């Protein structure tokens, strides 16, 4: 038996506590620490343009949102085609407050961490409410119930004058200890806020899955009747899965509103719900690294396809729509091919790669 965890080959658990550890080996812990540190310090060494910071922030916001989607769809097995609407609930909680009390009210500009948290809770309340049909509905019928919520959300925002009928509701610039966060530091500042939020949320999810409540989700996904027999309440578990998803989405929505300095309904449509779903699936449903890898992969792919079509446009004859067509075509092809050959998502590569190192020098 290897007592030195640095050189462990394979899994040798002797207690349940050991199996439930967040970091299985010290190498894990070391790599994770290095990864985190590098995330925090790179902006001081590499100069990133506003546009790149915007893209990175956008990815991190999507990561927070996808944590939620992965909980409800990956761990609890409930397909949600309305996740963007939950993100929208968070965004509009903040934007609605801004509209009610003024976009430069102290509550918005100074107590922004509180506002982000409140948005999360409002998201959770709506999540639980939308999850109610899950008591009775299953599979695609439930998926369509979430789709209905998406449609009703978009319509309501568009209809109500309080929400400016879907037009942009502006939110003022926030204050930090050093004073007002101006345009120059805007993306830089929010990078750290979003990064910290993403890390906290990630750890929260990881820990949740080690508890009874987290395992409950997985049990209900795998077989809700059996879970019922084991003394869990499948209906309530599903509702609570939706509430959790709503919370993360709400937080992501508030971050979105702050970073884009306002909320407009275009960012929370069905199309975005589908993109969130794509992120969760490509990343790997029911895995934590998947929630990280998925948004990174999809957003990068989108950008690369944009570059590709722009580059193609420079030498293709202007009469053809080829450059326009290339973006959706390439995007779809990559996703379809990827899923055909790796339906379990990118997290599976991560798993294979890890186990290779762990088991080395043996093959399995």
């Amino acid at each position, binding site marked *: 038996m290897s007592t030195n965890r640095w050189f462990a080959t394979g899994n040798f658990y002797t207690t349940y506590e050991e199996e439930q550890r967040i970091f299985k080996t010290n190498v894990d812990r070391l790599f994770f620490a290095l990864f985190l540190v590098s995330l925090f310090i790179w902006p001081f060494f590499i100069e990133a343009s506003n546009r790149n910071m915007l893209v990175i922030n956008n990815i991190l916001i999507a990561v927070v949102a996808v944590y939620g989607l992965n909980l409800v769809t990956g761990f609890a097995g409930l397909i949600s085609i309305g996740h963007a609407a939950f993100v929208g609930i968070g965004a509009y909680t903040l934007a609605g407050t801004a509209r009610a009390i003024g976009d430069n009210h102290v509550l918005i500009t100074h107590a922004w961490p509180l506002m982000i948290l409140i948005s999360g809770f409002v998201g959770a309340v709506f999540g639980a409410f939308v999850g109610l049909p899950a008591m009775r509905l299953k599979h695609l019928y439930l998926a369509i119930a979430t789709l209905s919520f998406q449609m009703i959300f978009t319509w309501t925002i568009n209809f109500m004058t309080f929400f400016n009928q879907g037009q942009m509701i502006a939110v003022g610039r926030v204050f930090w200890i050093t004073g007002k966060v101006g345009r120059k530091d805007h993306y830089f500042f929010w990078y750290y806020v979003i990064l910290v939020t993403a890390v906290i949320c990630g750890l929260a999810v990881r820990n949740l899955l080690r508890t009874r409540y987290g395992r409950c989700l997985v049990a209900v996904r795998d077989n809700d009747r059996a879970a019922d027999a084991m003394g869990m309440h499948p209906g309530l578990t599903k509702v609570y899965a939706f509430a959790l998803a709503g919370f993360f989405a709400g937080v992501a929505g508030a971050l979105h509103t702050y970073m884009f300095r306002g909320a407009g309904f275009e960012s929370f449509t069905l199309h975005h719900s589908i993109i969130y779903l794509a992120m969760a699936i490509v990343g790997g449903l029911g895995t934590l690294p998947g929630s990280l890898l998925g948004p990174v992969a999809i957003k990068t792919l989108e950008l690369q396809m944009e570059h590709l079509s722009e580059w193609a446009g420079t030498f293709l004859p202007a009469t053809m729509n*080829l450059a326009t*067509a290339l973006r*959706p*075509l390439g995007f779809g092809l990559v996703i*379809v091919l990827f899923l055909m050959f790796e339906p379990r998502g990118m997290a599976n590569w991560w798993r294979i790669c890890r186990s290779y190192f762990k088991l080395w020098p043996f093959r399995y």
Partner: protein
Amino acid sequence: MSYFFQLVVSGMVVGSIYALSALGFVLIYKSSRVLNIAHGQIIAAGAFIVYALTVWAGVHIIPSFLASMVITFFLSMSVERVFLRRLIGEPIISVIMVTIGLMSILDGLIYLTPFGSVNYSFPEFLPTTPISLGGVSISWTQLVGVIITAILIGAFSWFFKRSTIGVSMRAVSDDQLASMSVGISVPKVFGLAWAMAGLSAAAAGGIIGNITGLNFETLRAFGITVFPVVILGGLDSIIGAVVAGIIMGLIQQFAAGYLDGNWGLNGTADVLPYIILLVILLFKPHGLFGTHEIERV
């Protein structure tokens, strides 16, 4: 009163077009349990093929309508063969995701053609004067649309009830393993289901294209618009699609006719179907005509 009857007639017409569009979902779901998100794109493709054949190749509308159905039949079948055959047995959500990717691919392919960015309208081949009866009117295009829908749905129902292939398709949807053991080729059944869905999509596309003109955005949005219809009817019931389609058509027309413009409401026809859907699902969790699954631990 004629206002009321006009709403009923319009609702039935729109409803039957919904039913025809929903049919494609039902056919695929019935045999392979997959929800094809890219159906709207196939509808659009069908409409564009009809136009290309009639206007650019100069074929008469009726043969080109049929030809378009044949083309999408094979198009859809090859989509299944190339992209989805590998995924048999994979988690259903991955398969649905593949259809989402497919949506993007088909979008890209359609942007390659002029149809992606330019609008067209069909040449008028039917009389433009409407048929009127006691203040209620219906256009020839709509009437022909309803008739085609009725024929197609009748044919599909007959096919599933009576023909050998139809029965074997139902068998596959019931139990894949058992049907394989009696010699039914499951992959072939899947291919056929997709092909037939493609055929119905072309028919739907041809009809919708005649009513709205050929605008890609409008046509592909149809794939999403008919979701509540499909679910309301029960995902795997053809008769459900028809009944739900007509119900939705009527709801929308009544919403537009009696709700909009009163109490400051507007555009309720877009959202009401979803609200009613939610309410109905609370009482009938498998839609109106969907099969109840018997679940065992």
